[in-house]
């Protein structure tokens, strides 16, 4: 355990929603018992559809939402519902790249201020050092020094995302959580950003959590992949295991849903899922995926499947994990 940079142990984040007078208060189990770990320098791909809880999970890892149960261990620092994080220390360990490059930059701050302010906040007061680090970081993400005094609206979407990446890396964190870092960008710009993220990972020895719904991107960048459905991890394993030998019907459905003309025949049509993800307020009994599952049997509505091992390091929460293939 000591070698993990991030370890989640039975992490749950629940919300109380509704009104005591109108309809009663319900519990929304956005994240419900997630156990994960990320090692230094590793990239973990996190896949799932909207409503699966990955954004809540991200906020909890960033220390912005307190866990209801379970713990988050970051670089030897334990966070739980009763021990809130030391935000300054967290900031130097884990950072985040956001999906929307337009909403994620303060429109009234120049690039220089966006990058220099965090440095000053974290005790680097020497003017020359701040300047060098800002310019170095800009160069690393492919921005020119003369662009330092420009405002975000003067940049294109791709360049803004570079600024967002620079801001995430300016404090030299060990783990960067990338939340759909390319999905809001023009298609012809995405490759630039993916290449940049991979270069920086090697260059600075970063670990990533890559949240994406684009399985092509996830396969390209990840060392390991976790698939999330309705607040729980349903399958987890090495990238090759997940993509070549998926054992959870949901993972198979995700792969089958990719509109890739080169891949058309690879997975048969019966792998496709029916319908849509249920509400986390009212998850189906037993396995949460059962109403959409092509393999559904009686046991699936009766009990939640164990998160069992398929092969070393590859686990799937399906009653038929050994049959699927």
């Amino acid at each position, binding site marked *: 355990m000591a070698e993990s940079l991030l370890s989640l142990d039975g992490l749950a984040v629940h919300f109380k929603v509704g009104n005591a007078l109108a309809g009663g208060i319900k519990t929304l189990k956005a994240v419900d018992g997630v156990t994960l770990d990320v090692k230094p320098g590793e990239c973990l791909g996190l896949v799932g559809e909207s409503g699966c809880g990955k954004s809540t999970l991200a906020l909890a890892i960033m*220390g912005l939402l307190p866990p209801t149960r379970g713990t988050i261990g970051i670089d030897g620092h334990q966070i739980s519902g009763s021990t809130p994080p030391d*935000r300054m220390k967290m*900031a130097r360990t884990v950072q*985040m790249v956001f999906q929307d490059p337009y909403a994620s930059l*303060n*429109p009234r701050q120049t690039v220089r201020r966006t990058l220099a302010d965090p440095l000053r906040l*974290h005790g680097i007061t020497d003017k020359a050092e701040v300047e060098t680090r800002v310019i170095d970081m800009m160069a690393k993400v492919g921005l020119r020094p003369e662009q330092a005094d420009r405002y975000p609206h003067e940049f294109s979407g791709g360049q803004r995302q570079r600024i967002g990446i620079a801001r995430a890396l300016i404090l030299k964190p060990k783990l960067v959580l990338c939340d759909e870092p390319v999905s809001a960008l023009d298609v012809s710009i995405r490759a630039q950003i993916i290449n940049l993220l991979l270069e920086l990972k090697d260059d600075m020895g970063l670990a990533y959590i890559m949240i994406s719904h684009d399985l092509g991107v996830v396969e390209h960048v990840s060392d390991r992949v976790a698939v999330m459905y309705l607040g729980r991890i349903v399958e987890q394993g090495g990238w090759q295991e997940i993509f070549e030998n998926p054992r959870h019907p949901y993972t198979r459905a995700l792969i089958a849903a990719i509109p890739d003309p080169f891949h058309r025949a690879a997975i048969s049509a019966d792998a496709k899922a029916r319908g849509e993800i249920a509400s986390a307020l009212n998850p189906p009994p037993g396995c949460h995926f059962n109403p959409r599952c092509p393999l559904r049997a009686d046991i699936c509505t009766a009990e939640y499947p164990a998160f069992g091992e398929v092969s070393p390091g590859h686990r799937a929460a399906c009653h038929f994990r050994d049959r699927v293939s």
Partner: protein
Amino acid sequence: MSLALKLPRLRLKGGSSLWVGGGLVAIAISSAILAPWIALTDPVLDANLMNAELPPSWEFPFGTDAQGRDIYSRIVWGARVSLSVGIISQICNSLIGVTLGLTAGYWGGWWDDVVSGLTNLMLAIPSLVFALAIMAILGPGLVSLVIALGLTSWSYSCRIARAQVLSLKSQGYIQAARILGYGDLRIMFTQVLPNILGPLIVIATLGMGGAILAEAALSFLGLGIRPPFPSWGSMLSEARDQITTAPWLSVFPGLAIFFTVLGLNLLGDGLRDYLDPQSTTRRG
């Protein structure tokens, strides 16, 4: 979205309203400051019943009132009262409203409930009645006028600030600031406030106009500036009975209020565009 074509940025944003509004406000402010030099007569002492209710002429450009005092000179001197009441009380309102609205919107929870309740309470009581009550306790005069008006209409600034914060709170750059370790107050003042200033400035300029009008109402009721010293509001109130026989008595103070409030509103509009970082007029 593919419909959002990349439009070239528009030039000349808000340029004219900034200059016209600024000009009008500058005229009002400079006449207040320069009153001793540009007034033709003393606004209080130079009463002469021989000259009572004269229409505008070369000698008295805006005419004279029932006591024979020069309306022009009284308007110039009255600018001091009207503007200082308007500006200072609105600054108080903005400070109270923005502080409460910013913290309530950002922190939420019980503090938000308290502030929202207080705001609704303030909106439910007509602010003029509230100001009247304060004036009744403090007694008439310029200082109590500023206090009364400065404590009673912050609810608009507060509501606007709170609503703006709520819509900004989920923006990526606010979250990014928290992740970078910024404290709540630092986020509120460096990340949130600069981005909600536009509407707040507009509300503040509208509020200044409102305060100038409220001053008029209070002065009319005898709780504001005591005659004979002039303020635009009290001049207007005194002129009420002669509106048909000597319309210049009410027209000129009315125009002074009108152009000042108009100027403030135009200035607010212009400033909002000027402060917008996407406007090209800024670094031109």
